[in-house]
């Protein structure tokens, strides 16, 4: 008997059949991976399992009994916990208070702080993290620490199944390894995990079995996670068989002009003495761990942070430090790391998101020339193949990959000459990734310089022409992308690190 078995679950929303017959069986003590592109129905399935949505039809059996959890709390009480990507912790409360939020040990209405702290300490120890003190304020923990607290909260409800929605998205290499250790500790104790991730290599490392969703249907149930060939998995998800398809590089044209020169750039506590150049038509990649200063460096180049020392010049002219408008006027454009919170106006229409940085060009005396604006934005999104090709659509309703293209379209419309891309494929599924890679290369081939930051080393190595490797805010290696491989980069970034 499976711990959880789902069969033929259907869930419809107005106009969309989000789940169209999903089957899933999870055994106690296994890590069951759920794979699927954005929009395949993973999130809806989790919500149905956790009681946030109610299935229209189909069966869910929990420990052999047919159930339909009316609320997430009911699911939690039954032992099915969900940890969402946006960890739902209260920053101002302590670790123990967060773990026992809603079911604090109490006597006569008074909370028993001592008992609560002891219990929290025991749970954290069970997760292999006695280093996190129960009295510590959660806001002071790293993302990884918060994740551990979320798991402890699940365990405090005696969870037998924990659903983890892209837990590694907010972690870097070392933290992911630790997460896997915690997961193994839990499965060793008989707890089952449903693990959702876009990263196939992680599924290989931590997973036992894989269920693949496509367009709201289960297309494969319980494949062995370690041995199923990558090509098969990718084909099931997409109907194709390539994981990373990088477009071919072109040999550099001699004498291509230098676009960007960064000299001796420093910000105390973030990075020091960073120098590099980007030429027209060149993609320069920055590789390094979270905290190596990669995002801080590109944000400083873009003027979103003010440099303490050093200078940034574009085509020989020095930029005013700390001024985004100055950088944009000089021809820079940024696709920021957090697309939703930093890049897009989620509730506005596509064309308004595209034209926001070029409004002065599509206006006269402050009045917007709406027809010209709309036509130009529509042309740009068609050029980038944003789907659906509708400039009036609200951005929030687009998939991750298409949202990223909207940000790219913004800079394309402005005739941006140096594009700064911070994690351009985060939250973008495999199929759309390849498309975005091709777009970036296409832009470079048209003469745009690209500065690329990614936490995925294969992405930097596969896409960039030249690579800078960062460690603790310093450039420790600079060279052609073809001259170094993934393990070489890893050696450099880990060297000297604890």
């Amino acid at each position, binding site marked *: 008997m499976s711990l959880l078995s789902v069969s033929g679950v259907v869930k419809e929303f107005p*106009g969309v059949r989000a789940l169209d017959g999903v089957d899933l069986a999870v055994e106690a003590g296994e890590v069951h991976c759920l794979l699927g592109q*954005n*929009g395949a129905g993973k999130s809806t399935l989790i919500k149905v399992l956790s009681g946030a949505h109610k299935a229209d039809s189909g069966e869910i059996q929990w420990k052999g009994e047919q159930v339909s959890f009316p609320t997430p709390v009911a699911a939690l009480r039954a032992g099915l916990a969900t940890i969402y990507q946006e960890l739902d912790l209260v920053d101002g409360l302590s670790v123990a208070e967060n773990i026992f939020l809603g079911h604090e040990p109490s006597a006569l209405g008074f909370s028993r702080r001592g008992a609560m702290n002891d219990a929290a300490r025991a749970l954290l120890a069970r997760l292999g993290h006695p280093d996190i003190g129960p009295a510590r304020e959660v806001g002071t923990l790293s993302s990884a620490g918060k994740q551990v607290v979320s798991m402890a909260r699940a365990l405090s409800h005696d969870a037998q199944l924990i659903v983890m929605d892209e837990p590694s998205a907010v972690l870097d290499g070392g933290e992911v390894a630790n997460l896997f250790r915690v997961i193994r500790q839990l499965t060793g104790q008989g707890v089952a995990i449903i693990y959702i991730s876009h990263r196939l290599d992680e599924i290989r490392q931590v997973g036992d079995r894989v269920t693949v969703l496509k*367009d709201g249907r289960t297309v494969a149930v319980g494949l062995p996670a370690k041995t199923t060939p990558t090509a098969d998995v990718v084909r099931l998800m*997409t109907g194709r068989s390539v994981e990373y398809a990088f*477009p071919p590089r072109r040999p550099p044209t001699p004498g291509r002009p230098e676009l960007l020169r960064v000299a001796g750039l420093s910000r105390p506590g973030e990075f020091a003495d960073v120098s590099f150049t980007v030429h027209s038509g060149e993609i320069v990649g920055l590789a390094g761990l979270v905290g190596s200063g990669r995002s801080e460096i590109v944000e400083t180049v*873009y003027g*979103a942070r003010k440099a303490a020392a050093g200078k940034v010049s574009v085509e020989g002219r020095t930029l005013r430090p700390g001024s*985004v*408008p100055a950088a944009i006027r000089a021809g820079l454009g*940024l696709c920021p790391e957090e697309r939703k*919170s*930093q*890049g*897009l*106006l*989620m*509730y*506005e229409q596509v064309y*308004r998101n595209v034209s*926001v*940085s*070029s*409004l*002065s*060009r599509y*206006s006269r005396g*402050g*009045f*917007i020339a*709406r027809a*010209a604006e709309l036509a*130009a934005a529509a042309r*740009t999104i068609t*050029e980038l*193949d*944003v*789907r*659906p090709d*509708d400039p*009036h*659509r*609200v951005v929030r*309703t*687009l*998939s991750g*990959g*298409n949202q990223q293209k909207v940000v790219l379209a*913004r800079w*394309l*419309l*402005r*005739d941006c000459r140096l594009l700064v891309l911070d994690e351009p494929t985060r939250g973008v599924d495999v*199929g759309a990734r*390849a*498309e975005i890679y*091709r777009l970036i290369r*296409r832009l470079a081939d*048209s*003469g745009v310089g690209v500065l690329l930051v990614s936490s995925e080393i294969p992405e930097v190595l596969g896409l960039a022409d030249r690579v800078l490797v960062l460690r603790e805010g310093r450039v420790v290696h600079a060279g052609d992308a073809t001259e170094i491989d993934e393990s070489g980069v890893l050696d450099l970034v880990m060297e000297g690190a604890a």
Partner: protein
Amino acid sequence: MSERTDNVVTPESTVDLPPVDEQARVEAVGAQAGQQSRAPSWVAGRLAALRNLGLVAVLAILAIIGLATTDGQFLTTGNIVNILTSASIIGVVTVGMTFVIIGGGIDLSVGALVALSSVWATTVSTQSYGVGVMVLCALLVGMGAGAVNGLLISYGRLVPFIVTLAMMVSARGLAQQLSDRKTQLVSVDSINSLATTKWLGAPLLVYIFAGVVILGWIGLNRTTFGRRTFAVGGNAEAARLAGIDIRRHTALLYVLSGLCCGIAAIMIMARTTTGSSTHGDLYELDAIAAVIIGGTLLTGGRGTLVGSILGVLVFTTITNLFVQNNLPTEVQNIAKGLIIIAAVLLQRRGKAAAT
């Protein structure tokens, strides 16, 4: 508003790209996204219209109640002009408030700024310079105080609620000090004539109100300033990284609100023939309430000016109905409170339907 004029419209833009890999078009994610209909954007537009339609319906219901309870007094031209005249002053303040709230802020000082501007413009010495200086004085005092709000909020990085709360208290205090808590009579006739001169049966006040609404609508919906207001209120960080000077923009929003208060001060001087530190009492709450029931999100980024104006009209019509029926103001305030809650509940249901 602040665009360089050398940036003329250039329809042709975008870089020349090498041809697209055909395969790239065939494959890809978008497949399922492409099948979805255009519904969401269409629905969103419809919903906004429906919400305003809802307010229009409320007005219609109020009119029917008015007809039923007042012996036909309610729908006379005279009474409708009355309603519009009462709405005009708070309406002008609400235009400024709508900008501030869509831009992600709040302005609690508007009532106090109306009082301060009216007092400053009606001191004996200001009045001695004549109507031009009085008008200029009211506008400049409003804008100046608005600028103080704006600078403290944007460059001083203080919370709008606190800054404008402080301004609300101190501007009213300053108004009391300037006027020595006395009501100052307006002795300049051309100010008073704004309320007494009528075109087509309506006093000039109503036309000023209409003018401000039209300018406000154009400013919000047809200019780069308006577009940026939505962007700054919707996602300040994204707006900043897209190159918008969000601090300057935020400061300007409060100056604009102050300007509206200055205009309202002139109107209230005309209507009451006085300048007084008690003018504009609780205008901040009336304006915010009108903006909210008009469908503008208090968190910023979304809203309409038409909704706000309909909100003002709903409140004014209710007041008028109560007066016509000789009902006490206490009951009137209870009704207003209930309407605010009902409107917000309706909005939430509309939003839930949209998502």
